[in-house]
């Protein structure tokens, strides 16, 4: 018999090392390794106090950061009926149910209206925890309704993108949401109303190739992964390793695809200033 028989399970590192919404009392920054007190992190809008790494934020947090106070949620009752009766290794209905339970949402977006620095604004924020923030028929309908509502009320639209792309389990119907939302954005554009696309980590696939890239302003958070094809697909295509930082916000800025990279703590202020210019509103009185 061995002297040092291991009797307890070893302490294992969490398999998911990517940035995620932290839940414990203390959180380790995946970028700089700093141990952060969770309350400090929340107070700092989920941005590492040491290295400014941006942790992922959920849709409700996004809305509460951007809106001044209360806001009205719309179309929260829309739910997918699994139009393809899709089953892969498990039924899509089961995946939907699990995501509904885990997030308290019916799909991967919250559409709301409220005030942003006093400006009546429509905001749709995507929820990554709901099947990777994927865009299916409900996301398409909810965002389209939000845009149409904004045109009616002559409000600017902000969409906070956070998505792996179109939802495969709703097939070609998901693909068509790109067209549907883009058509609505066309009407918003011709109505002379502002649209600001906020690109956060990650924004890829069909979301990038539609509303994420159609902003009057495309504003990205630092170091967000933003692209059309996934890095692995590109590496398979070109049979080469991609350079560090490929498809990150700073790369896209350099390639001319986005207007500005903004730290999350500056995001609301930047959007407010831009909207004032676009809408011709007086600048806020100096505090």
């Amino acid at each position: 018999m061995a002297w040092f028989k291991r009797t307890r399970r070893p302490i294992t590192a969490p398999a998911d090392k990517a940035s995620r919404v932290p839940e414990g009392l203390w959180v380790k920054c995946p970028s700089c390794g700093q141990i952060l007190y969770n309350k400090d992190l929340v107070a700092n809008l989920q941005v590492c106090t040491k290295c400014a790494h941006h942790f992922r934020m959920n849709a409700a947090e996004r809305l509460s950061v951007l809106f001044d106070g209360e806001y009205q949620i719309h179309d929260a009752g829309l739910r997918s009926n699994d139009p393809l009766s899709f089953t892969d290794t498990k039924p899509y209905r089961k995946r939907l149910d699990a995501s509904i339970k885990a997030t308290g949402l019916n799909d991967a977006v919250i559409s709301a209206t409220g005030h942003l620095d006093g400006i009546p604004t429509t905001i749709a924020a995507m929820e990554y925890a709901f099947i990777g923030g994927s865009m299916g028929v409900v996301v398409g309908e909810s965002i389209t309704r939000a845009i149409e509502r904004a045109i009616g009320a002559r409000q600017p639209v902000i969409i906070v993108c956070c998505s792996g792309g179109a939802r495969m389990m709703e097939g070609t119907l998901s693909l068509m949401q790109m067209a549907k939302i883009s058509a609505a954005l066309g009407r918003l554009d011709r109505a002379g109303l502002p649209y600001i696309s906020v690109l956060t980590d990650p924004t890829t696939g069909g979301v990038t190739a539609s509303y994420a890239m159609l902003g009057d302003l495309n504003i990205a958070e630092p170091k967000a992964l933003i692209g059309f094809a996934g890095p692995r697909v590109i590496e398979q295509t070109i049979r080469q390793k991609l350079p560090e930082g490929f498809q990150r916000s700073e790369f896209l800025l350099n390639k001319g695809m986005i207007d500005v990279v903004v730290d999350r703590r500056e995001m609301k202020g930047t959007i407010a200033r831009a909207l004032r210019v676009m809408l011709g509103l007086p600048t806020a009185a100096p505090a």
Partner: protein
Amino acid sequence: MATKKIDTLEFEEPVAVLLKEIEAMALMPQTPERIASIAQLESRVTELRGEIFKTLTPWQRVMVTRHPDRPCMLDYVQHLFTDFIELHGDRRFGDDHAIVTGMGQFRGQPVFIIGHQKGRDTQQKIYRNFGYARPEGYRKALRVMKMAEKFKRPVIVFVDTPAAYPGAESEERGVAEAIALNLREMALLDTPIVVTVTGEGGSGGALGIAIGDRVMMLEFSMYSVIPPEGCASILWRDAKKKVEATEALKITAPDLLAMHVIDEIVKEPVGGAHQDHVEASALLAEAIGRHLDELLAMDSSTRLDERYRKFRQMGDVGIVDLNPPASEPTPASV
């Protein structure tokens, strides 16, 4: 005659047997009896093909869609249009060979033409990048569409691509932005647009030129959010599950007609469009002509409203509204 060539898909085995028989008989002295029995066998081939193609599985349809002899965009251009002039380049970066644009006459009606070109032999395939378009292809298409709008000419679109090119240069030059802009601008383009998915409708790469007043699919074409192989390797973690993925994704023309994604299915010749390019083109020309006549008779605001509504309703079949009581203002604190 295309039917003389023994080039059959694996599920056409009974047809292949007959074709071999015909080939053997054709080598023998041609007596009147033999000619008669060859003709009889040939009509049996057509009959049998018709039967087989009535009940193709989704994956078998994909095999037809990807058949190397399936007509390409330029085949349709040759059969459908006169006075064709190809227009090159996006005036920004370069000329993409996977998307062909041009102008010409369709039954005496001046039109602009846009489509993916995959290429047939190896050299052509490489030149066309296998139909995988780069950002400049989508930008060239938009440039030509804007010209069509300026001259008030309809746009005829042929869709046949596996996907937009997923390479580093595509990302660098903003393929996502190029596709996105086309989606928005095609929705607003003030001239009739008739789209036909003639082969592979591959995801955003297809959609990027596929917004129109009418969207049709050839009988054995496909239109999908992701290639079946890609879907299989992501969701099943096994690319060999492509047959299952194809069935689950519902990418066939009848499926998409039922879900109101497309307006019409255009018949193909017996055994698929590759059997007879001339007949396939004639069938397609009839459908395009019919829709074009309807669209040209409409005034532009009605046409644009209908185009908007057409895409606006997409997905309605997949939504239920649990219709909760009007939501109350939510406190900002999380």
